[in-house]
């Protein structure tokens, strides 16, 4: 049966068909929809699905399940694997019992990320196998197979889709969902599960011994494909293989091609290929993982081989590839003319930029407005990962590094000698992900800073996922709702106030008190995400400008809400208004009124 599926839904299908019993993850583009696509099946098939508090937690929960004999998967975006790196690395030593798959979706070109690291390096680093799908079909097939491979090798397997696989759609052949579940039982075995040095040393030896078994297992999988033609060759991994196939068809080139879907790559096929060709181009996105492998192998099997790729400057090491970039690289190899991309000067000259922006009525805008009023533009504003990072034009985002780094970087700025006021901002989901420890550290080490927790009761940027502060699980079931204010106090903040950012004056006053406080102060700005509020049926009357009172001062326009425009002499509120009423409070002429 074929379905037109999003890559992430295809991966979820692979998870279901493999009979996984525990599915964990933390939201992050481009991986978020995988967990969400499992949820509708969870109850029927008895699958435990969770949004974990962070990626380290997600991997560790999956490990516990695997050691108990239940197939498990932990899902995250590429940078999430940094958070989970600690368990991930030692897991390769202990190994697994039931199949355990870690999925880290990479984001070449940083479409929605702070870096474009290559997760294949993590698999190399941990000495475990990595599968690199080219499209949604392969993603589903590989995901299903990854559990088998994991059990065969007693190792975790990394599945590494990229944005153009996770967020691609294609007709995908799907199979039956596995209903059988093994009998789970945790079997005590300290030599396996207790990584004291005395146990870890032999497990490292065991891991190194497994490397030949990994290569043997991957030597005949269907995702490594060789077509021998002329003595010029292309070797390409993952989606780059599809770009190369398309380019070869367009150019009608007599060229040999080896497509790679596994790391480590298959030595046998690769040797056969490298012996056949006199010149090879290695095509892959991001890091030269395959290229370094080809360089090493060529020394043994074809030392005269000319190798083109990233080192030779033919294939970029940053950004994403497409069939045109690949076509032109191959054309150059054949001395064929490049196809130029038309550049329209008008598009550059007359088009206004359209960056993503905070939604009309977003409470973060109000919080930042109040923060700026209370702290002034001279204060330092370390920030974090979430929708609120879009507030850069408001002048209240001075740093954004990684999840949870606002409070810690802010502390370091203070300890580094900066004497001006410091006000950090962090969202509710991010605070619970890694901000907690930063706040604890700030309290313990006496950082005199203010921390604003922008609590919109959701993980908004990635598609409105619940978290422990919301009182709901991934399946929509009621759960314990953790109080962020109580947490902040327990972690050692002596000043904790909660405000409604739609009440601008009260929010400004709270920020002023926090600024004056001689220790660590926390302001929780709580107001539901405006998109969620609309979906929940909360309706507020929109606002309008009374032209008689408007003197065109532009104070409301500079607030930056997409619902406020400026016509000739007056401000105007358009149909996007969500009725938050903040602009009416900041208008110095009382010219903004509710539409009655």
């Amino acid at each position: 049966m074929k379905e037109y599926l999003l890559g992430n839904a295809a991966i979820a299908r692979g998870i279901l068909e493999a009979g996984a019993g525990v599915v964990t993850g933390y939201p992050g583009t481009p991986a978020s929809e995988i967990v969400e696509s499992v949820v509708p099946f969870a109850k029927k098939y008895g699958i435990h699905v969770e949004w974990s508090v962070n990626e380290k937690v997600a991997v560790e929960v999956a490990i516990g399940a695997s050691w108990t004999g239940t197939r498990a998967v932990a899902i995250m975006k590429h940078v999430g694997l940094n958070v989970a790196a600690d368990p991930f690395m030692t897991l390769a030593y202990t190994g697994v019992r039931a199949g355990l798959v870690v999925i880290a979706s990479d984001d070449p070109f940083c479409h929605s990320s702070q870096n474009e690291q290559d997760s294949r390096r993590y698999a190399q680093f941990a000495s475990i196998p990595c599968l690199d799908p080219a499209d949604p079909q392969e993603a589903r097939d590989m995901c299903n197979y990854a559990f088998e491979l994991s059990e065969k090798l007693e190792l975790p397997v990394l599945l590494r889709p990229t944005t153009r696989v996770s967020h691609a759609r294609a007709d995908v052949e799907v199979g039956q969902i596995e209903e059988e579940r093994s009998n789970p039982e945790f079997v005590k075995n300290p030599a396996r599960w207790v990584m004291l040095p005395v146990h870890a040393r032999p497990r490292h030896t065991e891991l190194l011994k497994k490397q030949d078994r990994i290569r043997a297992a991957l030597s005949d999988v269907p995702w490594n494909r060789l077509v021998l033609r002329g003595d010029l060759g292309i070797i390409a991994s993952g989606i780059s293989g599809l770009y190369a196939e398309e380019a070869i068809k367009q150019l009608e080139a007599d060229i040999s091609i080896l497509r790679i879907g596994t790391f480590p790559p298959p030595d046998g096929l690769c040797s056969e290929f490298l012996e056949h060709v006199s010149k090879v181009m290695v095509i892959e996105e991001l890091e030269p993982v395959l290229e370094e492998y080809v360089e090493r192998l060529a020394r043994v099997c074809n030392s005269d081989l000319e190798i083109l790729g990233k080192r030779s400057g033919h294939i970029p090491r940053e950004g994403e590839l497409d069939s045109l970039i690949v076509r032109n690289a191959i054309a150059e190899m054949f001395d064929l003319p490049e196809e130029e991309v038309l550049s329209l000067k008008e598009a550059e000259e007359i088009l206004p930029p359209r960056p993503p922006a905070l939604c009309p009525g977003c409470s973060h805008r109000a919080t930042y407005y109040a923060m700026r009023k209370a702290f002034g533009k001279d204060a330092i504003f370390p920030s974090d990962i979430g929708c609120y990072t879009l507030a850069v034009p408001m002048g209240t985002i001075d740093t954004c590094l990684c999840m949870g780094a606002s409070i810690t970087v802010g502390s370091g700025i203070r300890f580094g000698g900066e004497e001006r006021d410091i006000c950090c901002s962090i969202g509710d989901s991010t605070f619970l992900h890694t901000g907690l420890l930063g706040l604890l550290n700030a309290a313990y080490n006496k950082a005199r800073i203010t921390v604003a927790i922008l609590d919109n009761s959701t993980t908004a940027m990635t598609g409105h996922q619940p978290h422990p502060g919301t009182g709901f699980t991934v399946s929509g079931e009621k759960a314990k709702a953790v109080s962020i204010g109580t947490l902040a106090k327990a972690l050692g903040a002596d000043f904790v106030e909660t405000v409604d950012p739609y009440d601008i004056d009260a929010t400004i006053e709270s920020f002023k008190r926090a600024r004056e406080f001689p220790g660590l102060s926390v302001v929780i700005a709580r107001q539901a995400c405006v998109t969620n509020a609309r979906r929940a049926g909360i309706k507020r009357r929109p606002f309008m400008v009374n032209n008689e009172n408007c003197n065109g001062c532009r104070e409301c326009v500079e607030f930056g809400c997409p619902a406020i425009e400026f016509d000739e002499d007056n401000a105007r509120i358009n149909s996007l208004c969500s009725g938050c009423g903040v602009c009416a409070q900041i208008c110095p002429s009382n010219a903004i009124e509710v539409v009655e």
Partner: protein
Amino acid sequence: MKTSECDIIVVGVGGQGVILISNIIGKAAMKAGYPARGAETHGMAQRGGSVISHIRLGCEFGPLVPAGGAEILLALEPAEALRYAHYLSEDGIALVNTNPVLPITVTTGQSSYPPLEEILAPLQRICRSVKTLNATKLAAKAGNPQAMNVVMLGVLSRYIPLPEDMLIESLSESIPAKFLEVNRRAFELGKSEIEEA
């Protein structure tokens, strides 16, 4: 050698429903027995930013339409049509909703929004044909301005090698039943607005 039967680029602003109609087209292609490939924008850019979706009908390669290769540019917003015009092939057709959505850079006065003629002139220069309509107005006429994307889908139905009934079937499967009537009207209005293919 051709590597796709029909390459389509759908562009617009986050929230206009670019992804929804892209999926409707892809599902309809599958019903018609075409292999289909698509690529979407999720995450950060969806917050009122510029959005592009690639759809390839009768294609089994990567999901990205190469620049200069699109048979059709379906633009839900005029400035976005020009922003992605370089995807159009010389023989391509641009289908453009003329109703602008002002970006935050314009509403806050940092940039200005160009007149429609200035947006369309370069488009007309580089491709075979540019068809324009105010799809937002037509959607309002159908009963809901939000159905603008489906008006544009109706326009597109005249230009792609997919049977109309499969597009309609796929539309019906993709939206809640209570909005179906408005969307059917929107589809018809779009289809009849553009006379000849």
